[in-house]
Structures are given as structure tokens and as C-alpha cells.
């Protein structure tokens, strides 16, 4: 018999019941709640007169709607009345049910996918869900993590279980070493370019290979974060020493007396050598250089040195049509050089790239430089209050401000523009977020997804440039 994949192991460890019809009940160790996808779930519980099954499996924090400008006045001073009600509703629900919440002005508040791991809430071998598709992020720690809808949020609150069906196993192996100036973001954008935005539908993707193993935990989170942009609800990376070290001393990590047993159990969280995958994709790390998306889907991505595609050269008519529509929306012309795209705004933040390492990478590029005069706004939005504090301790805030970027309070911000941070109609933005869909960052806004270093390079030059060239690597 073939060995087990990491996903198989995580699934087996959480199986509560396998039903004859192929559906199964799996146990959920951790649920993270935020203001947008939880109100209807709490309301559902109340209507049915139900209680949460296990309070200590939940953690909440508001992130999508919160303002990122000065906000010491608290929730009452959120200008947008609908946002204010939503954030207050989360506070009220958590208070009523006794769920631990990091409220808006708590230093531990931040984007759900930054906060969970940072607190040691997400642990190797745990199952993690959240009413947000980028929950795949937590798979970086060898956890089984995926996004769920609001009905499922309610289901997990009430039962601590999820009705699920096992997915297929897919392995994306990145062999060799990454070049200097090439980051985790470039790796994942490149992967999505290769397998497409539906390439992982129905699968759990394990990211493996030498290149992945040499990437930090922050970088692995960036990669798993975007598994969903390749269609996979689940992205995972096997546990190694880097993973285990990450959890030492985090607030919700195993206690000292539990530590050795936990670490020993975590070491088992790797795919067996003889495990079989339904699909295997092999990528050569040396082929990856800094990436830029030009279109309205994350798969519409090319090397920074390349040109915008030409629909006339595409043989598949649906694809050619998609390219034409994207070019029109993005205001670009076929065969135009990526480095000729002029930008209006720059956004460094989101659950993809707002951790300390991302901010360090961006700061290294803007240090001693100035934001180009043609850039209307360049935002840096840390992923959590703790990331912000750490960055300030290292003086990164001063570097950003000195260069002409804005230094903000933590939240989702311009990643999806539910708060006041948004693009104007037709504006181009170099963004470190994960989605370049039409209107994602504001009505008519044009998003280009890049790494933090590439976004910083774009901020100081006003257009895309290969950061390796700018930095003389």
C-alpha cells in the first residue's frame, strides 16, 4: 500500500465519522471570526436557540472594515455607518458568547490570517477554518486550513465539525534555489501562471521541494495564502524545524510541559516518501524571476521583463476573448512592455504580504529614495498591531515616512477597499495583495499584483521596474 500524503494524515486525524454516502464529519480545532462573514452565523445560532459547542476553539478580530487612519476614538468614530454597525456587531456577539476577541484598538488586532499564526492559535496538525477564502494561509504550518461560507461558520460554532468530502492530492514541487531578489510572492504568482486559476479546483495542494524548504515561515504563508487563487481551498507545507521554531513562546502555543510531546507529534506531519498524489507539477526555481500581473485574474501574470499578451496570438477563442476584455478593463495595449506601465498608487499590505519580513523587504528598497512625483499615494499597512510595533522598533516606519509613503494602522485596507482606502476609477496600482479582479480595489480600479520589493521599486520609479536591476543584484 502506498504511503500517506500530509493531507491524508491531517484528514485521518480529524475524521469524526465517515458516512456511507461519501460525506464525512471532520473535527475543527480552530475557528477565526471577523466582522463580515460572522453576523448572520451568530444570528442563526440565536434563532435556533443554539450555543457554541466549544468557546476555547474560537478567536475573533475585526479587520475588513476597520479604518487604517488614526482611530484612537474607537469604533463609535468609524465614519461609515454600515461599517461601524458591522464592527460593533462582532464586538457584541463576542461579548455575548464569551469569545476571545482582539478589538479594534487592541495591539493584537489585525488581519485574521496574520493574527492567528502570530498568536500560536494556528498550530501544526490543527484544522483551521475562517469565513474567508485566504484561510489557506495557515496551511503553511502543516495545518489543514480552509475558507468556509457563513452557513458553515454557524455549523462549526454549533458542532465543532464540518461536513466535508475528501479532496484530491496535488503536489507542486519547486526544485532548486531561488535567485537573489526573487521572493515567495513571485514563486506563487509563477505557479498560478503555470497551473491556472482553476488548476487546483477540488484539490489540496502541497507545496514542496528544495526552494519551498528554504523559504521562511512568512514566505510559506504568502504561498499558501494564494493557493485559493489557483482554485485550491487548501495549500499546505510539510513541517520542518523552521515550522517548529516559529511557535516557541507564542501566547497560545503549547505550554512548557506540553512542548516536547507537541514537537514530536509535529515532526510526523510530512508526506511519506511513497505517498501518491493525483497530480504532480514540477517547477524549476531558476526559471522564476519577479512577476507582475497585467490582467483581471491572478493567472494573467508575466515576468517583469516581458510584454502584455496579444489576443491575436491566442488560439483558444474563449481565452482570446478573456485577454481582450482584460486589456480593455486594464487600459493596456497588446505587446506593451510591463516596465512601461505607469502607476498611480502603491499598496503594501494584505494577508499575503503585510508581515515583518515583507515590510523589511519594502523598506530596504525605499531607504534613501523618494516616492516618484507621479504617484498619488503609497500606503504601507501592517498586518497586525504587533507587526506594526515590531516595525517601529526597527525604525521601518521612519524609513517609509521619510521616503514619502504613508504608515497606517493594521487592517485589510486597500486589499478589498471595504474601508475608505481605495483606488479611483481607472487608476493603476502596484499591490502586494492577492486579487486583481475587476473593481476589487475600488470601482474601475486597475490592480497589478507584485511582491513587496517590486511594489516598493514601483513606488520610487513611478512605473514597474525589475527590482533586481534597481538594487544592483
Amino acid at each position: 500500500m502506498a504511503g500517506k500524503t500530509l493531507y491524508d494524515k491531517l484528514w485521518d486525524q480529524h475524521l469524526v465519522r465517515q458516512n456511507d454516502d461519501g460525506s464525512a464529519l471532520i473535527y475543527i480545532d480552530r475557528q477565526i471570526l471577523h466582522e463580515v462573514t460572522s453576523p448572520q452565523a451568530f444570528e442563526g445560532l440565536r434563532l435556533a436557540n443554539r450555543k457554541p459547542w466549544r468557546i476555547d476553539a474560537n478567536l475573533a478580530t475585526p479587520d475588513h472594515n476597520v479604518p487604517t487612519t488614526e482611530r484612537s476614538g474607537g469604533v463609535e468614530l468609524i465614519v461609515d455607518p454600515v461599517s461601524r454597525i458591522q464592527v460593533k456587531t462582532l464586538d457584541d456577539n463576542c461579548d455575548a458568547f464569551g469569545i476571545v476577541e482582539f478589538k479594534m484598538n487592541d495591539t493584537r488586532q489585525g488581519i485574521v490570517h496574520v493574527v492567528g499564526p502570530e498568536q500560536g492559535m494556528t498550530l501544526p496538525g490543527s484544522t483551521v477554518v475562517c469565513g474567508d477564502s485566504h484561510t489557506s494561509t495557515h496551511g503553511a504550518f502543516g495545518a489543514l486550513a480552509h475558507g468556509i461560507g457563513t452557513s458553515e461558520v454557524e455549523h462549526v460554532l454549533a458542532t465543532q465539525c464540518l461536513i466535508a468530502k475528501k479532496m484530491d492530492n496535488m503536489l507542486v514541487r519547486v526544485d532548486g534555489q531561488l535567485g537573489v531578489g526573487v521572493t515567495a510572492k513571485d514563486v506563487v504568482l509563477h505557479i498560478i501562471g503555470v497551473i491556472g486559476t482553476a488548476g487546483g479546483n477540488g484539490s489540496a495542494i502541497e507545496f514542496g521541494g528544495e526552494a519551498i524548504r528554504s523559504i521562511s515561515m512568512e514566505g510559506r504563508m504568502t504561498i499558501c495564502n494564494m493557493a485559493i487563487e489557483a482554485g485550491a481551498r487548501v495549500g499546505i507545507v510539510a513541517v520542518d524545524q523552521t515550522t517548529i521554531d516559529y511557535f516557541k513562546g507564542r501566547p497560545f502555543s503549547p505550554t512548557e510541559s506540553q512542548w516536547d510531546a507537541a514537537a514530536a507529534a509535529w515532526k510526523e506531519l510530512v508526506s511519506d516518501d511513497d505517498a501518491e498524489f493525483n497530480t504532480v507539477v514540477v517547477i524549476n526555481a531558476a526559471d522564476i524571476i519577479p512577476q507582475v500581473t497585467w490582467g483581471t485574474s491572478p493567472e494573467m501574470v508575466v515576468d517583469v521583463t516581458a510584454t502584455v499578451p496579444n489576443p491575436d496570438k491566442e488560439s483558444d477563442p474563449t481565452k482570446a476573448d478573456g485577454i481582450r476584455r482584460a486589456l480593455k478593463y486594464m487600459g493596456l495595449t497588446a505587446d506593451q512592455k510591463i516596465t512601461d506601465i505607469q502607476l498611480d498608487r502603491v499598496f503594501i499590505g494584505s494577508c499575503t504580504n503585510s508581515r515583518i519580513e515583507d515590510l523589511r523587504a519594502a523598506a530596504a528598497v525605499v531607504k534613501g529614495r523618494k516616492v516618484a512625483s507621479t504617484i498619488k499615494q503609497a500606503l504601507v499597512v501592517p498586518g497586525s498591531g504587533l507587526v506594526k510595533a515590531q516595525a517601529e522598533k526597527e525604525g521601518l516606519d521612519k524609513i517609509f515616512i521619510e521616503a514619502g509613503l504613508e504608515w497606517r494602522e493594521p487592517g485589510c485596507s486597500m486589499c478589498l477597499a471595504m474601508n475608505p482606502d481605495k483606488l479611483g476609477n481607472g487608476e493603476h496600482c502596484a499591490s502586494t495583495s492577492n486579487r486583481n479582479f475587476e473593481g476589487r480595489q475600488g470601482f474601475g480600479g486597475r490592480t497589478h499584483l507584485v511582491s513587496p520589493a517590486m511594489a516598493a521599486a514601483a513606488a520610487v520609479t513611478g512605473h514597474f521596474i525589475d527590482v533586481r536591476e534597481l538594487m544592483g543584484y
Partner: protein
Amino acid sequence: MKQFTLMTGMAAPLDRANVDTDMIIPKQFLKSIKRSGFGPNLFDELRYMDEGQPDQDCSGRPLNPDFVLNQARYQGASVLLARENFGCGSSREHAPWALDDFGIRCVIAPSFADIFYNNCFKNGLLPIILSDTQVDQLFEEVAATVGYQLMVDLEKQVVVTPSGIEMEFRVDSFRKHCLLHGLDDIGLTLGFADDIAAYELRRRQEAPWLFDAIK
């Protein structure tokens, strides 16, 4: 959970691949704390010429005449015909809520994004996967006939065209069962409370660090 058994309704064709959840219901409408009222903002950016705001009266907004659901011949459609990877993007259940609120009961496409597909069933909305050829055929027939109607029979797992052609589809038996009977799946799961408690007891021994840590 809402029931779905059998329906006959007019089909409308949305001829574009990778329709994402931001397109189905843009983020500014996700600020609502309710489950209903999203219908007027379904496909907001494609449907209207201006930028929509939450709680706005949409009746006076300028419509985009090119958008399929605005065309006179598709008024009252309850079956949406779509292309591959429909519903990709976020986990927002507001997407099926908006489709349902608008009056769509069934979406037919060659493939769906996983989370969206799953969310549909929780809301009495049936997502049907047919082959590329079958979907192509339906697109052609819809375009050719004004008032084109499809019958969808979940019990028999078939879509029936006006000329009587039956197209079979697959659906997971648990989901089918819940949808046919409008079952409350939380209630069903709580029926296994003993299994859940037994699992927890065992798991507390194996991995005690996963309990009582978040306080």
C-alpha cells in the same frame, strides 16, 4: 435549509469564464449584517453604469444595456447559464444570497469554484455541472429562442431542454438528500453529538495543547 426539488424556468446566458464573487456581489454590499436584500446589487458593476452604494434605492440607477440580465428578453430568468470556474474568489456566501434574492434558483456551468459550489447547497440554490459540449449547446439554443425554458429535476438528476433532450448531471448524494428535503444540516450533525464527544475525549489525550489554550 431551503428545499429544491423540481423547477422549470427561463434561462439567461452569462457568456464569460471565471466569473468571480467580487463580480457577483461587490464588497461594499458585504457590510450588511442580514442575509437578504442583496438581489438589487447582484452583478452590480456589470449591471449598472454607476458605482453602487449600500442601502441605495437602485430603481433610478442607469442600467448597462449590454448586460444580459438587463435585456428585455431575459426578464424573469431563474436559471443562469455560465462558463467555467464560476464563483471563483472569496468565500462570501453573499454571492448565493444575491443570486437567490434576485430569483436565480439554478446555475449551470462546466465547472465551479469549490467554496461557491458548496455555499449554493446551503441556500437551496442548485449548481449543475454539465460538459463543455452540453453547455455550448445550451448557450446556442438560448440565443436562438426567446423565452427559452429549462426543466431541472433534482430527484432524477436531469436538465430537460424544450425539445425534450435530457442532460444528466451528477450530485453528491448527501447534498442531494439535504436539498430535496430542505434539511437543517446543523441539526443532522448534532444527531452525532456522541461521536463528536468521543472524538474530543480521545483527542484531548493525543494533543492536549489543542484544548483550553485560547482564553
